């Protein structure tokens, strides 16, 4: 058993440029894995591949032992089990925060509004947004919008959550409230993969940190060893630039 999610030899090209060039990665149940690396190293692309928003060219992605990267497989059942939150929130601007969160459970799981009200309200309350449920996205601050986007993904009750630099579009004073949400999720045992530039946060909470460079994981390990004693020259160079 290799854990909840297990990638082997994953490759992805856009046209002639190979962006993900053979990635092996294991994520255990309840683990938090952080992807770090320079801009363009392939963090976003890797996350989009895991959630099947981008079809993988080669390799396997096993979710509970079942290969989800098989060409021709219907991606939708997989996407229901793996939630993703983007840097730019991508809330639906014509719906209130609560409607944003309820759309997918209604249409995909066939639940009705009344049955969803309870659990969705609980999510909003848990992340301090109970009084913002009826607001439209443009009436919310960036940090609030990003928390709504997280709630929207959580409302599908995913088994794994992917976060793609979800704090990098936020003003510094709003970053904390979003990171708090991640801390809470980690405590509750959610399996998570984060692409992040927040090195302090990765050091504090990650079970494993992966340094991506040119589409491969150059080095991975617990934050204690990777941050204080990186074995690769390129990792050292990257860390000295961002720390």
């Amino acid at each position: 058993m290799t854990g909840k999610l297990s990638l082997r030899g994953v490759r992805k090209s856009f046209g002639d440029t190979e962006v993900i060039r053979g990635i092996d990665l294991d994520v255990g149940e309840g683990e938090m894995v952080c992807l770090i690396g320079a801009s363009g190293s392939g963090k976003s692309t890797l996350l989009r591949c895991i959630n099947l928003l981008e079809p993988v060219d080669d390799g396997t992605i096993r979710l509970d032992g079942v290969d989800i990267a098989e060409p021709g497989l219907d991606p939708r059942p997989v996407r229901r089990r793996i939630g993703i939150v983007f840097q730019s929130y991508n809330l639906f601007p014509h719906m209130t925060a609560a409607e944003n969160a309820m759309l997918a459970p209604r249409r995909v799981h066939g639940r009705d509004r009344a049955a969803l009200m309870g659990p969705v309200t609980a999510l909003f309350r848990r992340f301090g947004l109970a009084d913002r449920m009826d607001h439209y996205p443009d009436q919310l601050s960036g940090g609030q919008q990003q928390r709504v986007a997280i709630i929207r993904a959580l409302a599908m009750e995913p088994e794994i959550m992917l976060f793609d630099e979800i704090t990098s579009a936020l003003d510094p004073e709003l970053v904390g409230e979003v990171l708090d949400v991640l801390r809470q999720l980690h405590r509750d045992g959610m399996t998570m993969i984060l692409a992040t530039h927040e090195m302090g946060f990765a050091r504090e909470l990650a079970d494993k940190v992966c340094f991506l460079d040119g589409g491969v994981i150059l080095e991975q390990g617990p934050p204690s060893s990777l941050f204080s004693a990186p074995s690769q020259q390129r990792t050292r160079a990257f860390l000295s630039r961002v720390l």
Partner: protein
Amino acid sequence: MTETHGTVSAAPAVRPTRRATYEARVRRRSTTVAALSTAAVLLAVVVLVPMAPGWEAVKRSFFDAEVFARTFPGLLNAFLLDIAIFAWCAPLIALTGLAIALCRDVRSPALFPLRMFGAVYTDIFRGLPVILVVYLIGFGIPGLGLPRPWNSPYIWGSLALILVYSAYVAEVIRSGIDSIHQSQRSAAASLGLSEADTMRYVVLPQALRNVMPANMNLLIALQKDVALLSFIGPVEIFRQAGVYKSLMANFTPYVGAALIFLAITIPATRYADYLLNRQRRRQR
């Protein structure tokens, strides 16, 4: 002018900011300038036009008060037919236009013929003058010798309008669909929504709202083009004005008809502009 005074005195509690005071002054000055120049132009028209050599003749044949009074009620009555034709065409155009726009957006290869149909349809009907389609369909199809209710020019004339206008509406809606950023579709897909649900709940509501002003303008154009059906039979307002003209050897009924059209189209145009402006403001 009284309005500006009204609003200023209506809110005496709050002291206007320097900027507000400045803007109020600029506004007052531009209102005055606009009023003066408008008055000058109107005066010139009122004084100069009657000095033209043919003015008396034109006045008699286009602006005869008595003819106007006698024909106006009949024109209004005929205009009801325009409104009726408009009223049954508009919803059908909206539905057909939406369907064609969706045809052009299908991705599945099995539905490629649908996609091609959408493209050919819009190319053809946007490429022809409306009057030509009205003639071809309005005379052509009843010419097949169809039985009683099916040879009506109302049916086929309306069909011609529906075909042409739904092609325009389809293009407008499609541009609206294209204007919705790919990241919205991505977000919907990442939640496990189907393509159909993504279109229905995420893309279309935003797209239709964005193109509302453009569609309003098409509706206004449709209201005017209803008059084209007069060429194949229905006695709507334009045709009725023609009848009066022959009867009384006077063109005033046409002026009456023009006024009736304007009474509808000017407020509608203003409303479309208002929608457009509101949308621009919102997007800023």
